[in-house]
């Protein structure tokens, strides 16, 4: 059974269709990059996976549990699925360390001690152990995003969703965030990553999904995607963003 199973998902904003019959799956331990021009529906699709965006047709299963199904305990499902946002979304009224413990304590019911131990270990891992008493606002964008990854990992997720994690970063900070993600991938984390970082896709992803106008146009192994056989639309996209 795939970790994430997306079947025939369609979504409309009013009469405007943002997702059209999207079907794909992410196996356990697989890293899948979703790319495509802006407005192609990639962020919307990834937000459907943990139910942050509702969809009107089709179904999405995470570890066998239906995201849109009526009886599903969405908060519980989400607590198992880590998510990293384009604009970090750290809680600005909490210290860095509290950002990493609040979910563990309030959602998972862990003791404060246990949550702190986990948080310390994760901050060390993302290279920010001296920053635990800082406010998020005092950190650079790259540091904030690494804290955000730590916050998601603190919940011991079974898979991770990244929604353009480096798009809001200054160029010199992109590397430090990608490095953390690359480590994660190497350790076997199941990851779905919306990104324009083609270098990351080429080096880390097992598969690449290319979207355009709400459709999955291309769903191929990384080798095939960056090789020759692919749709005209994807070719055009690649030629444009790989040129520089």
């Amino acid at each position, binding site marked *: 059974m795939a970790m994430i199973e997306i079947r025939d998902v369609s979504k409309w904003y009013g009469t405007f269709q943002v997702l059209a019959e999207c079907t794909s799956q992410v196996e356990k331990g697989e890293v899948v990059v979703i790319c495509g021009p802006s407005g192609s529906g990639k962020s919307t699709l990834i937000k459907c996976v943990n139910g*942050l965006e509702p969809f009107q047709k089709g179904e999405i299963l995470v570890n066998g549990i239906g995201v849109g199904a009526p009886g599903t305990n969405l*908060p519980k499902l989400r607590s198992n699925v880590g998510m990293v946002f384009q604009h970090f979304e750290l809680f600005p009224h909490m210290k860095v360390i509290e950002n990493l413990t609040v979910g563990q304590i*309030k959602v998972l019911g862990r003791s404060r001690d246990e949550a702190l131990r986990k948080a310390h270990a994760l901050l060390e891992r993302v290279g920010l152990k001296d920053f635990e008493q800082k406010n998020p606002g005092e950190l650079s964008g790259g540091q904030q995003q690494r804290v955000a990854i730590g916050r998601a990992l603190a*919940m011991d997720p079974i898979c991770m969703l990244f929604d353009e994690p480096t798009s809001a970063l200054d160029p010199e900070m992109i590397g430090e965030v990608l490095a953390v993600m690359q480590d994660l991938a190497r350790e076997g984390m199941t990851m779905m990553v919306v990104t324009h970082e083609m270098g990351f896709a080429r080096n880390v992803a097992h598969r690449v999904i290319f979207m355009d106008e709400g459709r999955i146009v291309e769903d191929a192994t990384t080798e095939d995607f960056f090789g020759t056989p692919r749709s005209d639309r994807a070719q055009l996209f690649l030629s444009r963003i790989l040129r520089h």
Partner: protein
Amino acid sequence: MLGQLDLSVLKPSLPFLWTGLKFSANLTLIAMSGGIAIGTLLAMARLGKSRPLTAVASAYVNLMRSIPLLMVILWFFLVIPLIIGKPIGAEYSALITFTAFEAAYYSEIMRAGIQSVAKGQVMAGYALGMTYWQTMALVVLPQAFRNMIPVLLTQTIILFQDTSLVYAIGAKDLLKAADIAGKNYNRPVEMYLFSAVIYFALCYTLSSIVKRLQIKLAVVR
């Protein structure tokens, strides 16, 4: 004319005025706490997904904001005893009225506060597995509250001034105490003047604090 003022009457009436001021302050603090609590729930109801709840909350807020406070004070004073079947006294009536009335104004402030919190923050709360109530309590409301502290305090200063209206139903606040003392000593001008000085000193001090707080909060953000 000022030479004719007899300020010697102030000293003996101080304890009495102090009792009145204490009631005014209590009324303000209770109506503020209750008003902010109920106002926050009203704001959440207005911004929530349940249409009936939104409609009820909107109707309540708009009704309260469209009626003069003095009328509400008088109406509650007359109607509450009819509902519960016994008189509750002007002081309790004033507490209930002000809490209910101010809740409408505080709810508008909290509504703006909740809307001032970025939508991504709500998503981040949900993404961690928080429920609606957890996301509100842990993520949205602390930020909304912080953003709105200056406005909430300004509203409280207005509330403090408005408490003088309970004079109309005979609750013994600062103004009523000054009124009674003025009649006792036959020196109403001195007493009204003195109570005005107290209102001014308190409100001016508070609004200076708010101004300083505003600058401080703006810098932190």
